[in-house]
């Protein structure tokens, strides 16, 4: 007769896939809040996005408060 036992196994290796996903999110979020000047919306909106600056205005107060250089 066989016995079943359960043990907790610690796997320290950090998955490369997770690191890549998190690194992409880090770069994208940092750009969006800190540096976008219409670039993201220009993909669908065209050059007009650089005048409208929707993301810039949305993140404007956080941009100043978090220490990013602004206008």
């Amino acid at each position: 007769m066989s016995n079943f036992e359960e043990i907790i196994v610690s796997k320290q290796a950090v998955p490369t896939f997770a690191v890549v996903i998190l690194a992409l999110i880090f770069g994208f979020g940092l750009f969006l809040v800190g540096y976008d000047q219409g670039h993201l919306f220009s993909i669908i909106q065209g050059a007009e996005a650089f005048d409208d600056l929707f993301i810039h205005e949305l993140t404007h107060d956080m941009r100043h408060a978090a220490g990013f250089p602004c206008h």
Partner: protein
Amino acid sequence: MKTARFIALVLLAGCFAGIIHGTANLVIVEPYLDEAIGIENQNLFSSGEKQDTPEFWVEYSSYRDWQKGGQVLAGAILGTSVGALFGIIFAFSRRSLPGNHNVKKALILAGIMWLTIYFIPFLKYPANPPTVGDPETVVLRSILYLSFIAISGFGALGFYKLSNRLDKGKKIAVILGYAVFISIIFVAMPQNPDEVTAPMDLVIGFRAMSVIAVSIYWIALGIILGAFWQKLQPDKSLQTYTS
């Protein structure tokens, strides 16, 4: 390590800490932003660039509401993205961080990252309210600020790697090494080219509140991510075997 659980807890922790950051900004930083933008408006009127008309104030209210409304959303986005970086570094360094509880470990790492990629760069290139900052120099200022953060962050990482090769008694030399390294960079990097023309009490008050709000973010991030890690243990799994 359980990949999905690891990613989810890191992103959620960053998002929650970012919402706290955005809310703190609304309460303690926003009054300084309003005051600074008020000065900006007065400058526009006196230069003749804008007219003090009801139409101006309707337009102003509209975009100021949009900007204020964005504080919490931008906090969530920024918090999630910085939290993602924090999560990566925490996962790699957790075993070597002091403490026997993940909240303590995460708070220690948050303190190190707050110092190296936020506070030391802040001392060199402090946050400024609107009215301070020439649009012509924003690209240069952005490059300088990001470069300083990158140099300080990678410098700290390099000295941490070096510390792993040294005996425990010699680790203080690594901290001193980083201090000397970043001091040299601090002196060598160019100053912010913009002159501060806004009232200094406004600028100093704004900077103090900015530091407090960002510090609240880092503390919240350490506590939340550490607590999530402690609870969810993404690096541990239950295995069944037959004997």
